[in-house]
């Protein structure tokens, strides 16, 4: 059985000014898999995600070519940009609690999409906070500011916000660099649950995190795919490329 392709990237190139940072990458992401992306700094991991939800367009000197299809639809030709971004949840490396109440942090995206009734918003807020393992800690103080939470809580709030617009794809960009190992493990448990409902792209600097969570992992280096394979190949004894083996073993990178 051929796997259901959720995201298809074909010959994607990205340049900032005259400097090309992604040199024509082609790969597929399957529906409901956890897709790990590893690679050292400057390997264009974050830029890749920004191409996906088109926030890359905010960098005025960025030029993109090639195609990215989500559900067969080319994101670069999407008219309703805001709808596209709602389909793709994005979690940035550093936690961002917006300076509004915890409730409003989660209700923000549904409200922007036009949902105004409290009776509709309440269940979404509760569900997203439960999914991000934050509900029990904040259920009694939903009115306090999102910025007053601790770093780990804010990161879970960020994930709750990314879930609040019911995305089909969840992109996590090094979500664990600002939080402690215990919270990281809790979120990883959450991700294993979430994959039943959505496709997850996990960009990480921790090769072991990709090994724990991902089904397949892509090794990006300097804007090129060195190797993309199932996890037991990438992290096994015999990856196709020597550099992959060296990188996951910590010999370089």
């Amino acid at each position, binding site marked *: 059985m051929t796997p259901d392709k959720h995201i298809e990237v074909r010959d994607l190139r990205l340049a900032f000014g005259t400097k090309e940072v992604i040199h024509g990458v082609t790969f597929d992401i399957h529906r409901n898999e956890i897709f790990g992306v590893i690679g050292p700094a400057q390997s264009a991991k974050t830029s890749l995600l920004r191409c996906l*939800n088109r*926030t890359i367009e*905010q960098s*005025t000197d960025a030029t993109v070519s090639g195609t990215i299809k989500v559900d067969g639809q080319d994101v670069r030709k999407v008219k309703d940009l*805001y*709808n*596209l*971004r*709602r389909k793709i*949840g*994005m979690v*940035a490396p*550093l936690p*961002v*609690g*917006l*300076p*509004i109440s915890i409730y409003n942090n989660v209700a*923000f*995206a549904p409200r*922007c*999409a036009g949902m105004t009734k409290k009776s509709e918003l309440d269940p979404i807020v509760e569900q997203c906070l439960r999914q991000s393992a934050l509900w029990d800690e904040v259920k009694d103080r939903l009115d306090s*500011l999102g*910025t007053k939470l601790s770093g780990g809580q804010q990161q879970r709030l*960020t994930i709750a*916000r*990314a879930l*609040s*617009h019911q995305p089909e794809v969840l992109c996590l960009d090094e979500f664990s660099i600002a939080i402690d190992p215990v919270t990281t493990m809790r979120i990883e448990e959450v991700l294993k649950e979430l994959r039943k409902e959505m496709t997850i792209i996990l960009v990480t600097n921790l090769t072991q995190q990709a090994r724990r969570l991902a089904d397949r992992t892509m090794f990006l280096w300097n804007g090129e795919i060195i190797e993309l394979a199932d996890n037991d190949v990438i992290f096994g004894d015999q990856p196709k490329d020597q550099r992959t083996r060296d990188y996951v073993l910590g010999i370089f990178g």
Partner: protein
Amino acid sequence: MNADPNKRFTETPMVRRKLCQEAIAKWIFRIMSASMIVPLLLILGYLIQRAWPSLSVGFILDVPIRGIKDGGIWPAFVGTIYLVFISLAVSAPIGILAAVYLNEYAKENWFNRIINLAVINLAGVPSIVHALFGLGAFVYAAKFGCSIISASLTLAIMTLPVIIASTRESLASVPRTFREACWNVGATRWQTIRAIVLPNSISGILTGVILQVSRAAGETAPVMFTGAIYFKAVQKGDLFPYRLDEQCMALSTHLYNISTQVPGVRESIPFATAVVLLGLVLVVNAAAIILRVWLRNRKKW
């Protein structure tokens, strides 16, 4: 180095010299900043002392008599309030909205660079040039005549670039990560601005606008060219003595007239007028400071 741990903290000549330099530097900076207060206190003290015989609430409420040589300053006081309010009512909305565009929407291209340059240069234009421009544009070309409306519009153009600059500064103080977080969940720029950016910068924006009150109140040349009149008979304490197409008196031009143009003015009256003008400015600035303190206390991150 530091072979003997017991000697690590003993004073060497080098350490003493360093501490001495540090103390000298600190005191130089401290004296310089303290000396900033001196001119203000001297000005205030001198003005109040000279103005003392005329200072009273009645002085503000009374109208000038004997060909503005005596009496109060009510028409000028009200005129200044008119000018300030109307000019800011024009420049604040335009300035704030323009700043929102420049800071939140504008991409880095030649068109917006020209706008930026224009704002910076407009802020550097001397007020007498604004006065001439106002005379040509509003009094003659737009046929408003010498009137409150012409003078207010001239002041509005003069305050506009500073309001744009201060508003942009307040907007820029809201971290960019907040905006990106909003965009990532599919919020439009306007939804982001309304929900996150404006609520967290509005106090700073208002402070910037309020500080322009003192500037508009103090300007003489633009008002003198476009809408100020030497004398206007109004009722004592009348709150609405002027129509917008009429000329009005203003504190700054009145002060100019009674100190340089009219012989035989009672000696304390120009000083009392200056005290009122200065008092008005200080009260407004105090309001801005209170707003800023309030802003600091409710900072959310």
